[in-house]
């Protein structure tokens, strides 16, 4: 949007050149289909000119002789009617061909780039995703891809129009050189007017589009915060806020309308003015015998039927700025070279994995380390809790351990093997992360848990029992086959977290990382789940567990507690040991109790 604004004034020739280059790329991708669409479009242009020629011919060979002789020129009349119908038939075929094939070209280009962009999303590392706003990425794959190729809707038509104009000028020249001059003035004028129209409309439309987004954000926000609005009686202020945004949109829309109101009547009147000029000049030409009445009628008719298609050229040129902006955004994703390659090694053996961190360091921004110099040993089959206040680096640690991010310094070792050397499938099979923010697919309960892996229903139910989700899943209308999401059932935060946990557990991971993955659960439910997990870990093939935790009861389940403070390990030990020797740890963990005691003493 802002880029469109800035495009308005600056280097338009360069912009047009770049736009044409994108057109070239699109044409290159759909050579055969595009050529076919253009072929149909050229046929359309020529048959349109032919239509006018038929009228001119009919005037001179059917209408005039018949009226002059007072007798129907039957042979010519039949020919005339057949010519009209044939021209129309050809025109119809050409329009079907142009619109259908042209549409196919556009939809193929869009589908192709959607595939390219989403494939790239799947290859780009999580760190890259974290540094790009979600809304922007979604719009890159949707609106931007469409904006890039939208120009291919009018493009074949515009090329056909060029053929049509050449044909029109040629037939006009054949009919009368002087009258052709009118065409040579009116057609370019029509063309220029169209381009000016599209160019002045572009930034205004973009402005309106952006304001439409603002109106939508205000509505979303205000309705999401309805409880606050209502309980503090802020309805009127909220309405005023929404009215302001709506009025800005209204004014922008009216401004778009004003431009339309100026140009559309002009564009409509121009060809009619052409006809009037043709008639005016035609008098003299016919009087001097230089031209036949049929030629004048033909040229006048040409102006009438050519006017509308000529707009296609304006549409193409008007669309080019959007094409360039869309293309730049799409290329921005496709050309990104960020990568995080996986290694070739497997992870041998079964049972819980041992985890070791060696002087691990990480930062999102240079010189602002999030984690520094972490050394940690987690024994196979043990439960380790990571404790720390907000911003101490707990979530970052969880993502480093599961290798969604790579450390800047030091390394993560899984069973003694550097995580960076392990191949993607082996890593995913051995290590499961349950992230803080639950993500469910718009799919069935079963697919959300199995992710389409071949896992029998009994196993799924068993895991659902472990995470205390069996009862609510049974109560769902279709059980495991219930569709979740937008068009299906929606679940509470706690239910979603339980399915997310089930997804991890059903894979029998050898290392399980829970990043505050039970925060929306009732504390009692959380306890039962974690206890069941801990019991599994005691067994032969339970996972090693690393859990980011707040609640004391959870921490108490751990064999080992890691206290993170300001990106460093402040202390490691059992809960009792840390409590004993660290007041900072005590403050952190005993916050609830402390608050309670204070209240009691008042």
């Amino acid at each position, binding site marked *: 949007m802002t880029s469109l604004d800035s495009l308005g004034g600056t280097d338009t020739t360069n912009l047009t050149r770049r736009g044409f280059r994108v057109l070239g790329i699109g044409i290159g991708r759909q050579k055969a289909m595009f050529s076919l669409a253009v072929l149909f479009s050229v046929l359309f242009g020529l048959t349109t000119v032919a239509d006018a020629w038929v009228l001119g011919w009919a005037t001179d060979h059917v209408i005039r002789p*018949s009226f002059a002789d007072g007798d129907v020129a039957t042979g010519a009349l039949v020919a005339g009617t057949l010519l009209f119908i044939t021209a129309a038939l050809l025109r119809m075929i050409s329009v079907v061909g142009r619109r259908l094939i042209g549409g*196919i070209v556009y939809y193929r280009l869009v589908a192709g780039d959607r595939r390219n962009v989403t494939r790239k999303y799947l290859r780009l590392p999580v760190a890259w995703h974290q540094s790009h706003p979600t809304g922007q990425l979604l719009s890159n794959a949707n609106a931007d891809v469409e904006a890039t190729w939208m120009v291919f809707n009018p493009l074949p038509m515009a090329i056909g129009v060029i053929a049509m104009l050449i044909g029109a000028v040629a037939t006009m020249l054949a009919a009368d050189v002087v009258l052709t001059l009118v065409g040579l003035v009116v057609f370019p004028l029509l063309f220029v007017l169209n381009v000016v129209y599209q160019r002045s409309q572009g930034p205004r439309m973009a402005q309106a589009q952006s304001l439409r987004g603002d109106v939508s954000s205000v509505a979303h926000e205000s309705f999401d915060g309805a409880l606050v609005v209502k309980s503090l009686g802020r309805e009127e202020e909220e309405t005023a806020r*929404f009215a302001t945004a709506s009025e800005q949109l209204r004014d922008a829309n009216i401004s778009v*309308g004003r431009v339309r109101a100026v140009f559309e009547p002009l564009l409509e009147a121009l060809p*009619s003015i052409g006809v009037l000029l043709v008639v005016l000049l035609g008098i003299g030409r016919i009087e001097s015998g230089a031209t*036949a009445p049929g030629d004048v009628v033909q040229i006048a008719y040409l102006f009438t039927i050519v006017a509308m298609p000529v707009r296609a050229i304006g549409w193409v040129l008007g669309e080019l700025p959007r094409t360039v902006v869309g293309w730049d955004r799409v290329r921005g994703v496709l050309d990104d070279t960020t990568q995080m390659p996986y290694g070739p090694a497997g992870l041998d053996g079964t049972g819980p994995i041992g985890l070791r961190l060696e002087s691990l360091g990480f930062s999102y921004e240079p010189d602002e380390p999030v984690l520094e110099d972490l050394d940690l040993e987690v024994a196979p089959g043990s439960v380790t809790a990571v404790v720390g206040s907000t911003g101490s680096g707990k979530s970052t640690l969880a993502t480093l351990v599961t290798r969604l991010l790579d450390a800047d310094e030091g390394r993560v070792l899984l069973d003694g093997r550097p995580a960076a050397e392990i191949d993607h499938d082996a890593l995913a099979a051995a290590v499961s992360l349950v992230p803080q923010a639950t993500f469910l697919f718009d799919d069935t309960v079963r697919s959300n848990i199995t992710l389409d892996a071949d896992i029998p229903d009994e196993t799924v139910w068993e895991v659902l029992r472990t995470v205390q989700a069996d009862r609510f899943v049974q109560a769902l209308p279709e059980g495991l086959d219930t569709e979740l999401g937008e068009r299906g059932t929606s679940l509470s935060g706690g239910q979603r977290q339980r399915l997310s946990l089930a997804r991890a557990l059903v894979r029998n991971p050898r290392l399980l990382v829970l990043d505050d993955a039970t*925060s929306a659960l009732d504390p009692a439910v959380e306890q039962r789940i974690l206890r069941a997990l801990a019991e599994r870990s005691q067994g032969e093939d339970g996972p090693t567990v690393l859990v980011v935790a707040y609640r004391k009861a959870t921490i108490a389940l751990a064999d080992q507690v890691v206290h993170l403070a300001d990106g460093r390990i402040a202390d490691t030990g059992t809960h009792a040991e840390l409590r004993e020797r660290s007041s900072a740890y005590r403050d952190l963990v005993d916050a609830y109790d402390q608050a309670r005691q204070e209240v009691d003493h008042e």
Partner: protein
Amino acid sequence: MSELPIKESREGSLRIIRRGLSLSPQIIEGWRVTVLLTLLGTAGTSLVPVVVQRSVDNGLGTTDGGVASDRIVMIVAAAGLLLLISAVAAYFAKIRIFTGTERGLTQLRVLAFRHVHDLSMLTQNTQRRGSLVSRVTSDIDQISLFLQSTGMILVLSAGQMLIATAVMAFLSWQLTLVVLAVFVPLVISLKVFAERMSVAYDHVRQTVAELLTTIAEPVVGAAVVRSYAIERRTQQRIDDAIATNYRANVNAQKIVAITFASAILVGGVANAAALGIGVWLGVVGGMSMGTVIAFIFLITLFVGPAQMATQVITDAQNAVASWRRVIELLETPADVVDPGPGSTPLPDGDLGARFTAVRFAYPEGPTVLDDLDVTIEPRQRVAVVGETGSGKTTFAKLLTRLMDPVEGTVQLGRDTAWADVSQVSFDDLRRHVVMVPQEGFLFDSTLAENLRYGRREATDAELEAAIGDLGLVDWFAGLPRGLATRVGQRGESLSAGERQLVALVRSALADPAFLVLDEATSAVDPQTELRATRALERLLDGRTSVTIAHRLSTAENADRILVFDAGRLVEDGHHSDLVDAGGVYSRLHASWVAQASLGVRPETMVR
């Protein structure tokens, strides 16, 4: 919409349009002038055929020298002038249409927005919020798009065809009948085309929705996709969605292409018929040469509108459907209404609450709260406990009048001055009673603006004073930009705990006599938790409060505990009275103790 029998839906549509126009009178304000200008504006298109006819019949059609040049020049000059007038009229007509529709629809948009805030479904049913947003955004946009684009084309085309028909009828009624007869089959088939197009577009819309959801998977779920190595599965789902969407689009395009093109064929047949029959009529019936040629020009005025007709019908159906949705929303009565003039004032100072024989049920739903009689004294600190679905949240909502009871009364007041909450004006009620929701929802603005939701005219100094009063100075000092700190969308730049702090300060600024709190269940970072607990303590000091408690400490420290179970108040008393009574509270308490203390064994956990 498409399932409705045509007749019924047409009548329904007329009602919707009438109602819609009465809600946005600006759209048709001065419509007589607009229609006149529009007709004038479209008249320009019929000028050319007339000029051609007059010119040809004044000698342009012959080569034998009988050209009445002066008359033709006059005709052309007159036409030029009319063309100019017509263009100017078209300009004004369009300006009027754009301005009128935009003003009218903006008013409708704001009206609908305001009404949504009065509907309890907004606070009760979070799943419907998305659709409520579309009522005030995309639905209105759809109507606006129709009125200004295809609707305008409809009006212009109608005007154009009306004038063209009039000109035709004036020139020759016989040929007029011929041309109309040729277009009749097309008009009849339009209905079929429009229905098929509407089905095809519906399908496209469905596939777009699926496409957007699947494309969101690798973006929103990036961590999940990567950590479970399901890139191939995800790509397959996306590719399938892209392919389905592609097929739906191409299928719709087929119908569009065929309908668009069929008008051209009909135009060609009309040309042929006009030529054949026109020439014959000329020879036997004295029709002029100019008339025959003029008809061929006039036919072009029918082809354009016929090409667009299917699109116009489809858009019109969509627009009416949108309009219907907005109107239905506006016609949904607000379930909780302000008593208006004649409301009962609440006494200033301390407030208590009194429930008398209260029952509540959702429309057509089971009773969720029944037979409730309870009085809360001024300055009492009450904790409400119970399982999910026990009725404790309903209790809080009735107290703050987010809902009205089905039976019985809820009153606020003290001593002898009591007022039925349904008779208290919203302004008065909200000055005295404030609810603090579980999640501290923040608006995408600065901290100061968010705090001012509590008291709109508060100065920066007052805001800082309120922060100080709640003992949050150290937290506030740690914020990089103080009151000017931007909180981000939904307050996401702050942690969940910090958002709760903001909600508390906000409530403190509102300075109500009566506070209703829904305690947060989700765990927050302990330091912030500690701050929040202290701040809350200060906030509650000197006020009446009802807290939906999820924590042991809250219940233990309350003056009084109300225990709800299956829609009834089952226990009422102090912690010390209830804890060993062996009732619902004893069980809840045991479960709290179990999860809060250390080293608990599974068998002591309470189900």
